[in-house]
């Protein structure tokens, strides 16, 4: 890459260390807003625990709705890091290097938020620990046949793997920061650098470990979202019980992950003045990947709807009908527009593909993917096999606030992250530029 090598080492360091010390009023305003939203969401959750789940919009038969949508949504976005770091690393795509840490950070924070949501949706959250196999005197034990317990193991494994995968390439940067920092963060950096001295043994071990972790985390990531999708496809609810859900959800996850990554990168580029590092080339490549995933997503969606329509199973067809022509049609067609039509136009036509339009597609894809998860969960539940049990659903302020709180929490965690750690891996960047 011609332009990368033109930036001297010292400038790279200055540019990428500058966000760690210069904070603006705009930054503090954003942090305050996000913190307030998160606090409000936590208060709403506390109220929900106190009064009961009834203050949310759930009813019979829609026993799962907003919270479960949020859960699948956030676990899905966590595949951003997997794609960039693991898949592109294994494919040897060198343009990914300035983007890896931002992507892995998205993964970790989304997983943290996603792992919290199953607690929010529990009827008796104070008994959540019964899902953990611990020795006890009461002859109770979790049911390992339940997809929810598989969820727990999968997400725990993925969270551990992702945190470590974020942490490993951070170690050399932390060691460098530890020797140059002057404030309280010096202690944090030194602690986290765990004795890194830059010896060739350490580099060798680190590179092998990172390559291995890339492969392992990739396998885990695919398995995690497959297992999350099996929460639904293992049930016999019409239009949940579909074998396509495993690959469908993984593709959707990578799709929404790239969209989130595009937005995060656009934000970082603008607010942290990283125009030299996050170049139009990167956005262009991500835009092309987004287009590819949009096509894949459309393929899977069409395959699912088409087979249901042709098969004409009464239980499934009722759900299909409400989705295409009925109550949920506005949501469904909005989703198709947001996920396929608009990205196809804006990203497929080369003249229209630039950072702004890629950013717009990122937003619409996130909206579209949230709607997709909502449709997958609520639409079939609303129309069970026995027509006498059909119902309706509308969210209440509690669900809207908590959903908004998850978005604010993501932004807040990211805002804190970019001010403590350099958001581009300096050593990987220099390594790519010069060798």
């Amino acid at each position, binding site marked *: 890459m011609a332009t990368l090598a033109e930036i001297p080492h010292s400038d790279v360091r200055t540019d990428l260390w500058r966000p760690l010390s210069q904070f603006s009023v705009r930054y503090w305003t954003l942090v305050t807003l996000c913190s307030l939203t998160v606090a409000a969401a936590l208060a709403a959750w506390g109220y929900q625990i106190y009064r009961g*789940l009834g203050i949310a919009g759930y*009813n019979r*038969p829609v026993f799962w709705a907003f919270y479960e949508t949020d859960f699948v949504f956030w676990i899905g976005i966590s595949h951003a890091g997997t794609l960039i770091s693991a898949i592109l690393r294994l494919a040897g795509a060198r343009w990914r290097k300035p983007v890896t840490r931002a992507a892995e950070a998205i993964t970790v924070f989304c997983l943290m938020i996603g792992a919290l949501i199953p607690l929010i949706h529990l009827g008796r959250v104070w008994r959540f620990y019964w899902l953990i196999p611990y020795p006890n005197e009461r002859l109770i034990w979790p*049911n390992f046949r*339940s997809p929810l317990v598989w969820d727990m193991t999968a997400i725990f494994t993925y969270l551990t793997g992702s945190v470590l995968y974020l942490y490993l390439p951070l170690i050399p940067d932390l060691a460098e920061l530890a020797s140059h920092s002057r404030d309280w963060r010096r202690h944090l950096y030194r602690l986290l650098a765990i004795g890194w001295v830059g010896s060739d043994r350490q580099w060798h071990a680190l590179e092998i470990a990172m390559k291995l972790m890339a492969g392992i985390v990739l396998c885990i990531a695919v398995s995690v979202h497959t297992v999350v999708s099996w929460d639904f496809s293992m*049930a016999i609810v019409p239009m949940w019980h579909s074998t396509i859900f495993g690959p469908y959800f993984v593709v959707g996850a990578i799709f929404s992950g790239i969209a989130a990554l595009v937005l995060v990168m656009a934000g970082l580029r603008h607010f942290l003045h990283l125009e030299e590092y996050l170049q139009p080339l990167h956005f262009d490549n991500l835009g092309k990947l987004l287009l590819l995933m949009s096509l894949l997503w459309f393929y899977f969606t069409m395959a699912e709807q088409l087979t249901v329509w042709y098969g004409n199973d009464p239980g499934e067809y009722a759900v299909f009908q409400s989705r295409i022509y009925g109550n949920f049609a506005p949501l469904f067609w909005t989703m198709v527009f947001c996920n396929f039509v608009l990205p196809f136009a804006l990203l497929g036509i080369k003249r229209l593909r630039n950072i702004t339009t890629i950013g717009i597609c990122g937003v619409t894809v996130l909206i579209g993917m949230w709607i997709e998860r909502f449709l997958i969960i609520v639409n079939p539940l609303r129309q069970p*096999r026995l027509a*006498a*049990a059909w119902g309706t659903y509308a969210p209440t302020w509690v669900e809207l606030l908590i959903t908004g709180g998850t978005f604010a929490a993501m932004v807040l965690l990211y805002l804190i992250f970019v001010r403590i750690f350099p958001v581009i891996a300096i050593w990987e960047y220099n390594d790519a530029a010069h060798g």
Partner: protein
Amino acid sequence: MAEQEAKNHSWGMAIDLDRCTGCEACVAACHAENNLPVSTPDSAAKGRTFHWIRVDRYYEGEFPDVKVKYMPVLCQQCDDAPCEPVCPVHATYQNAEGLNAQVYNRCVGTRYCANNCPYTVRFFNWFEPEWPEPLQLQHNPDVSIRPAGVIEKCTFCVQRIKRAKLDAMHDGRPLADGDVKPACVQSCPAEAMVFGDLNDPSSKVAALARSGRATRLMEELGTRPKVFYLERGA
């Protein structure tokens, strides 16, 4: 699923749809017997009624040739229940007498079982239950009050089964057919519901289950329900 041993009971029910008038006395009796929270027009509008047994109405034809069919739907106590494998804490299981038991104390409220039930007969306690005065005095002491956050459903009046078994043991006689009558069976004015031991070939319910008029609801799903619906020319 393992078949029940011959000496164990296998509780089942037969409901004669030709006799059912849709009066919903069974619904009211169940409410009274099992301490169900009160369902109001407000909760009905929100989709949060509690009817462990409900009467579904199916309309056929156009006015003035409309026919209405009534179908009481309650927990089918499936031998192969889809609600059982999905509970992460084993709060629902099939006991030795074929009843699908719900352990209120164990439930953490994930509501996966309620989603997976194809008959939609499981109910979730959205709030702590409340009864307007003086209905709280009417509670049945044999049935526990479910707290907020747990799932509940029809138990085939397991408290009456237990009471009948204890009485029989006390009297030193075996349990006879017709000793156990759940509240709904007892209250039906048309005597459309019969309850008994399917493992006892001489019981009334076993004979009805074997008859040509017996079908089961959505048995093609493989749930092996134990509620038999009798209708003409099935």
